[in-house]
């Protein structure tokens, strides 16, 4: 008997390149596509209205595209674990399909559902299509540990087979005799809710700058590629004032929700490059956006505490300050630094900011000025940023706060200078902070330095109509760079207290991400051991002939081969 299938949408909200959906349809008698919405009353606090609206638009789009195939989307209230048993019975289901979710909680949830399904005699088919590669293969290739530097990641990728081709879009032809039984009251029972139904107050809500849905995503990718072809330049575009604004060719939110298949994007980029440049091997930098996403997914997939500082083996324990007042000022765009406030305003209003803008506000919150934990910033982004999913958001915050991933900490973005260099005229500020419109370009980034006459002329007195700057940046950054140095010095814990770390021959670090540490007799320069002890990240001993004052030294071991050398970044003082 032909099976009755359920395809379970979570991410992957699309009909193109959806191998799991294909498997649901293949040879089946009936197909029902479900999406679970819980909690239902998400709108009670009006948090994340842009994110919810985007999601609902994606679901609407899916429903409308499924209608063209004589099918519908089934939006269901409740938790999958509670609802599935009933659905399996009611619809006599024998096959369940879904796209693989690499995130640790996703894996846990899916394992439970799989078990439930097997107990009910339901066949479960899972397909990878949210990432370019099978992430477990990457980890395997790296000796069982996810790569912790982007360079290492790129090296591993370049050794693997290219990603699988995207599969064809679901069509009537493919569906064949497979149908979806749709009841008369489908829209009441299983229709896509509106924002109001979910409890959001939509009065005065401006229209979405980033409209959700697969249809929009596919239009955008064509535009994106057209622009690239026209420019015939695949280099990273130079940052200018315009880059800060939402672009009609921007794709990141669509990749996050899965409205756009990353594999489709990958192959279209490759094809275009080959056509324009007439060579066959595109450089890895062409796929920068996709590979960073993949990198963070890989780093997170085996680490349930990836989004925390405590108990996270790859996160340095930094003594961040707890300061709810300061955090609120940052989140609500009331820091008194127009550059920061304009960015946070754009974020809250539209749901997207340029990646360099993210660096600026993340640095300001954490290691640059406020010294507040990256976990707090991550939570704010999770609520407001359309393309912030768990792995990428947490990973990026750890990166930008110098809590992990081996990057340098000497460079701090200035909340005045950085903005000024990017957009000298200050148009971005004027657009998102209309109260500052009257300030000339000379003072718009640091209006507190403007003479009283200028402030009066601008009809904006600093401290009255717009807040005074909440910190003295020079002082704050001086203190914080000292703190960061202390942390990394402290990681060679016993120095300065009389004891010295012993070291032994460095093993091939591409095989193992950590080795054991022992303390006994004096250091000999050619031997070196890295370790993870307790909740500190890396304990390091200093053996460098040359001491660096401001940066993390890079040690290049003669015994490691070229490929693994880039994973040999070890910190000392």
């Amino acid at each position, binding site marked *: 008997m032909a099976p009755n299938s359920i395809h379970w949408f979570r991410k992957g909200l699309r009909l193109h390149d959806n191998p799991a959906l294909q498997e649901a349809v293949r040879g089946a008698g009936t197909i029902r596509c479900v999406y679970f919405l819980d909690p239902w009353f998400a709108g009670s606090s009006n948090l994340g209205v842009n994110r919810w609206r985007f999601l609902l638009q994606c679901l609407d789009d899916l429903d409308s595209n499924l209608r063209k195939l004589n099918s519908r989307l089934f939006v269901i209230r409740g938790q999958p674990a509670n609802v599935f048993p009933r659905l399996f019975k009611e619809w006599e289901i024998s096959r369940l399909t879904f796209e693989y979710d690499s995130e640790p909680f996703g894996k846990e949830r899916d394992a439970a559902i799989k078990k439930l399904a097997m107990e009910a005699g339901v066949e479960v088919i899972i397909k990878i299509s949210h990432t370019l590669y099978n992430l477990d293969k990457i980890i395997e290739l790296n000796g069982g540990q996810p790569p912790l530097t*982007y360079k290492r990641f790129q090296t591993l990728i370049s050794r693997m087979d290219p990603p699988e081709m995207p599969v064809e879009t679901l069509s009537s032809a493919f569906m064949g005799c497979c149908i979806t039984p749709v009841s008369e009251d489908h829209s009441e029972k299983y229709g896509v809710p509106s924002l109001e139904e979910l409890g959001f107050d939509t009065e005065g809500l401006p229209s979405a700058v980033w409209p959700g849905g697969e249809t929009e995503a596919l239009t955008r990718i064509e535009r994106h590629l057209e622009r690239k072809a026209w420019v015939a330049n695949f*280099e*990273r575009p130079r*940052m200018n004032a315009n880059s800060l604004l939402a672009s009609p060719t921007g794709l990141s939110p669509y990749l996050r929700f899965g409205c756009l298949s990353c594999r489709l994007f990958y192959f279209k980029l490759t094809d275009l490059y080959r056509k324009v440049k007439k060579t066959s091997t595109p*450089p890895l*930098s062409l796929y*920068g*956006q996709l590979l*960073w*996403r993949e990198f*963070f997914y890989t780093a997170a997939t085996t680490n349930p505490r990836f989004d925390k*500082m*405590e*108990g996270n*083996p790859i996160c340095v324990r930094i*003594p961040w*300050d*707890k*300061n709810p007042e300061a955090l609120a000022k940052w989140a609500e765009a009331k820091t008194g630094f127009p550059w920061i406030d304009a960015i946070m305003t754009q974020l809250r209003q539209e749901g997207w900011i340029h*990646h360099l803008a993210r*660096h600026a506000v993340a640095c300001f919150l954490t290691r640059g000025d406020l*010294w507040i*934990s990256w976990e707090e910033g991550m939570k704010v982004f999770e609520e407001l940023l359309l393309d912030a999913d768990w792995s990428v958001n947490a990973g*990026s915050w750890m*990166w930008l706060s110098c809590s992990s991933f081996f*990057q*340098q900490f*000497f*460079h*701090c973005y*200035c909340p005045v*200078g950085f903005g000024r*260099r990017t957009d000298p005229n200050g148009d971005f500020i004027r657009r998102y902070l209309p109260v500052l419109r009257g300030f000339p370009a000379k003072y718009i980034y640091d209006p507190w330095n403007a003479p009283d006459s200028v402030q009066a002329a601008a009809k904006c007195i600093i401290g009255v109509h717009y807040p005074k700057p909440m910190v003295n940046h*020079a*002082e704050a*950054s*001086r*203190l914080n*760079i*000292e703190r960061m140095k*202390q942390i990394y010095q402290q990681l060679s814990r016993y120095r300065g*207290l*009389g*004891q010295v770390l012993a070291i032994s021959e460095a093993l091939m670090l591409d095989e193992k991400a950590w080795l054991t540490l*022992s*303390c*006994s007799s004096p250091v000999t320069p050619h031997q070196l051991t890295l370790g993870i*002890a*307790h*909740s500190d990240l890396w304990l390091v001993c200093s053996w460098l002939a*040359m001491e*660096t*004052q*401001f*940066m993390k030294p*890079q040690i*290049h071991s003669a015994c490691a081969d*070229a490929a693994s*050398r*880039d994973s040999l970044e070890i910190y000392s003082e």
Partner: protein
Amino acid sequence: MKRRLSRDIEGSSSSCEELMEVCKRARHPSEDSGDLASNWAWIPQEVLLRIFQYLPLLDRAFASQVCHGWNQAFHMPELWRCFEFELTQPASSYLKATHPDLIKQIIKRHSNHLQYVSFKVDSSTESAEAACDILSQLVNCSLKTLGLISTARPSFMELPKSHFISALTVVFVNSKSLSSLKIDDTPVDDPSLKVLVANNSDTLKLLKMSSCPHVSPAGILCVADQCHGLRELALNYHLLSDELLLALSSEKHVHLEHLRIDVVSENPGQQFHTIKKSSWDAMVRHSPKFNLVMYFFLYEEEFGPFFRDEIPVTHLYFGRSVSKDVLGRVGMNCPRLVELVVCANGLRPLDEELIRIAERCKQLSAIGLGECEVSCSAFVEFVKMCGRRLSQLSIMEEVLIPDHKYSLDEIHWEVSKHLGRVWFPDMMPTW
């Protein structure tokens, strides 16, 4: 001391568990574990000491619960030479504080064993007060090292000055053998420095006091005049004077090893005094190998007095935007330069300035560039000229501007070739 110490989630007690397992077996020797197990209860104290030295404090504390002998070992003086008091409040910090009972124990039983002590405090005033409280009780200590470290906002500055000073001077007066003192971001003042000097002038080797606004140039001069063993000094530029440098270069003074100077602007347009070239020359003559580390946090227009003459700076950090012009002067006047970090410049390429630095700063081995621009060709030229002496090359990806000779993908091979190792620019996530 009972088991009230809360366990750290990540605190690995595997080593501790093993010890406890072994000790359990010692009490109930089983047939197949052999007689080795029963000897664990009788390990000599010296051996126990060595073992305990490898264990972190928490594991040692658990081990001390096992039996009377191990408890005694836990309290051996050698294990209490170094201690770091971590003073935090749950409302202001994520990290755990040193347990108050443990602090009481230390003061009661081990204060005269303490030699190397540091206090890490968070941004709350209570933590700073707690530190002062402990300090005032360290009457029997002859400390060699004392560090007061703020891990977030400098909370020592929020204390009433007299309260802080009286606590600190307890240590100054009683230790009499202070060798290393870190009191950055504290309200220490000239009179307390006098007390320090009166009691510790023979032993003081290291003094770090950046951002101590109550100290005057006269106060620090007193230290330099009396403490002839001083090897490392860190202070702010406003405390620097020609007299200070000459005092540090006097015959009686040992060779200085490390001088760190923070140049920080309070308000835009601040004026800074100059130091005579002759004072720097005297320093170099007296201490030819000394490191001069300078941190600049100035507005672009405040650099007027700096880099007009030759200055023996070895490590230079520009924390804010610095102009092309100033970087050009750096190239001309800093022959001893070893490390250079430029956080930001502007949108005009630094090609000429970098080449000049490669030419004239022959000791340069580390460079970090943030928001700057350098053309790829000039960068390759720079690396070629420096060659393998560049052991630290940290350039953000956006700095390098591709030109007709090199693209971004090609440049890392060229640079790697000249450096003799694999090199890539620093990357930032783009998503």
